[in-house]
């Protein structure tokens, strides 16, 4: 059966350039799914991706210090710990979910704020909502955020080691669909991470144990869960 590829061709061209808007990306996904295992779709996708890949070569190269390669190569040897950012700057705007910023100190600080808030003495502290997770595993895991605003802080202490090559991954479940939140690699059981999202729209927050590559969808059952509506 010969299928029409005009629309898919147009969508794939824009996708290769990262130029699709959200509705275009959704449309492409539906179209590709409708075509199933289609050789022509694959051919078009590769063709556009190869052209896009060449475009980068038009630019004057910008040298990279060899030290970066050393830093990366040192990473696998130290296993699942998240890579340190190039400096201690924490840039929430551009930050990926892994903002590594002195885990133990941050956890201590946040717990101090939490305790102050619970004691009713936190009036001077801007009051984000705080949700505590419940779990089948030991440890304390919580998240603070301001409902309706992007940005949340996740922290934990006493988490069990997820195992070699494993990390914890946080999901925001919305209408039954898990949306990736953050990858959490505990250091001595402690975690502090910044999440560049608004968790208040989720029906449920869940944490699973995943491989350190942090898959796009959960592959195991949650070990911790929380409902963002039930704040303290």
């Amino acid at each position, binding site marked *: 059966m010969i299928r029409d590829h005009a629309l898919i061709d147009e969508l794939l*061209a824009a996708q290769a350039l*990262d*130029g699709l808007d959200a509705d275009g990306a959704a449309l492409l996904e539906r179209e590709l799914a409708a075509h199933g295992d289609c050789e022509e779709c694959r051919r078009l996708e590769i063709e556009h991706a190869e052209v896009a890949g060449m475009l980068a070569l038009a630019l004057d190269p910008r040298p*990279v210090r060899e030290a970066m390669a050393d830093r990366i190569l040192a990473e696998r040897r130290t296993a699942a710990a998240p890579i340190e950012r190039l400096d201690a700057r924490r840039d929430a705007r*551009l930050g990926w979910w892994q903002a590594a910023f002195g885990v133990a100190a941050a956890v201590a600080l946040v717990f101090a704020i939490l305790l102050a808030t619970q004691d009713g003495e936190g009036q001077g502290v801007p009051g984000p909502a705080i949700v505590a997770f419940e779990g089948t595993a030991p440890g304390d895991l919580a998240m603070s955020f301001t409902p309706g605003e992007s940005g949340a802080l996740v922290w934990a202490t006493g988490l069990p080691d997820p195992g070699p090559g494993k990390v914890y991954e946080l999901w925001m479940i919305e209408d039954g669909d898990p949306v990736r939140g953050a990858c959490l690699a505990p250091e001595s059981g402690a975690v502090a991470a910044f999440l560049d999202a608004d968790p208040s729209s989720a029906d449920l927050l869940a944490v699973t144990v995943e491989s350190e590559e942090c898959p796009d969808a959960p592959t195991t059952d949650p070990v911790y869960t929380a409902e963002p509506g039930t704040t303290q």
Partner: protein
Amino acid sequence: MTIDPGRSATVRSVEPGGARDEDLLRRLVAGDEQAFRELFRRYASAAHALAFRLVRQAQVAEEIVQEAFLSVWRNPDRYDGARGSVRSWLMGTVHHRAVDAVRREQAQRRRAEQASGIGPGVVEDPVDDLLAAIDLPRERKLVRAALGALPEEQRDVIQRMYFEGLSQSQIAERTGLPLGTVKSRTLLAMRRLRANLGEGTR
């Protein structure tokens, strides 16, 4: 450093003809650090140039390159040879990360501009200065010539989309063109680029 695959003197001394990117990837899966260094040497500065062009912040660009190569080092088996070349996979990863950063930044800036009443600044024309340079390695020359051979309205779309990180609707908004025109120009530009780039794309 050259960004030309297969031309490394270091590699040639070890493997006559130079290792193909795909072979380097295979060695990477086995944890071969030399293979990683070679791949890094081939593409890191091109990746860095791409990230910097998009995000315009040295530190953010470096972080994007580092994260992209770290992901290659940790998960080389994510590369699927049936879905294209190592180069397009690598550059696609870097571009994608950089565009993510740009869009977040744009959203922030828009909010700030709305708050302060200041409109967007003057947009540069990076492709024009790209086309001015001379005496380049073969591939850079080829790509610049291919870009230069596009009709201006198609080059403009590629420039805004690929080199500035704008989406199709953002381009329509900024140029006042109907969205459908932006979409058709994108496809026409990509087809013509492929024809102009010829064997270089495989």
